């Protein structure tokens, strides 16, 4: 089935779209994907159970936190110049002249957060919302990460630890 004979253009021209070994390959792929779903699903928290706050990371460092119980932001040392708070909105700056930033809005009632504006080139993070335990928003050009924090509960988490 896997003979090591090099093919070239004339072989490809006469090939059929479906060959013998394709069955094995498709089966392996489907089995691998099903197995990964079985491994991942137990750790996929889908409820808003136990959500207590949000963590804001700037380049893998924790820059600020927000706790729903106190309705209060807390800015970490070294980030007071990079974070601006305005009621239920937090602006995180990524350069010294503050021209690159993301604005995140927090909904206390539904315990969710969303990026409402970003100066990054792709704007992929804009209008994304997190509301589930363990959910996150990531802005790659700015290396901003917004993570929802919640209680782990009594079940073991094989993936995220």
């Amino acid at each position, binding site marked *: 089935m896997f003979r090591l004979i090099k093919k070239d253009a004339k072989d490809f021209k006469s090939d059929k779209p479906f*060959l013998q070994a*394709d069955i094995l390959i498709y089966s392996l792929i489907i089995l691998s994907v099903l197995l990964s779903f079985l491994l991942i699903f137990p750790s996929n928290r889908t409820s808003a159970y136990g959500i207590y706050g949000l963590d804001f990371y700037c380049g893998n460092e924790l820059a600020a936190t927000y706790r729903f119980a106190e309705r209060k932001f807390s800015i970490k040392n070294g980030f007071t110049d990079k974070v601006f708070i305005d009621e239920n909105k937090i602006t995180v700056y990524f350069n010294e002249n503050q021209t690159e930033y993301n604005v995140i809005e927090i909904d206390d009632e539904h315990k969710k957060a969303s990026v409402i504006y970003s100066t*990054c080139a792709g704007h992929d993070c804009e209008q994304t919302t997190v509301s589930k335990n363990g959910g996150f928003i990531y802005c790659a050009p700015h290396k901003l990460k917004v993570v929802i924090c919640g209680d782990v509960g009594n079940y073991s988490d094989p993936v995220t630890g």
Partner: protein
Amino acid sequence: MSVKKIALCGILSALALISFMIENLFPPLLIPGGKIGVANIFVIFAALVLGFKYGLFALTFKSVLGSVFIGNVSAILYSLPAGIISYVLQVALIFYAKRVSIIAASVVGGTVNSILQGITFCIVTATREYVVFIPYLALIGILGGAIVGTTVYLLIKFLPDRFLFIHRSENNTFNNNIKGE
């Protein structure tokens, strides 16, 4: 290395770059990072018609310049390594596995590329939460690989021989002789 091959490699690299940038204008498919990978049509076509190193050049050209032009240079960190590994695996299956079709090899490449990109993203950005998206990325990779593989298969099947550097000899048999080589 013939002039014709170099010229065609340049054209295919440019087409891969353009299609990468156009695809980037559209929102991700279902989940963050979900892309079909239309640019890989030209990368795999270059590998099949011109050779391994030409396809590798097109892949590197597309990944590096595409990330620079869309303004997300850090994307090179997780797209290029995953792209190279899946490309090598795909080309090895296509060229050396006798009973594996182009479409199946492309599905393998697409799936591996999506999974590796997801894993690399998790490691580079220290975002363990993204792991839950990897199975969905694999499904999108399967779909993307099928589309890319089918398109390349149809191109190889229906393009005239001269575009594939195949020359027929006097008794009308195939002769993969490239002039100027």
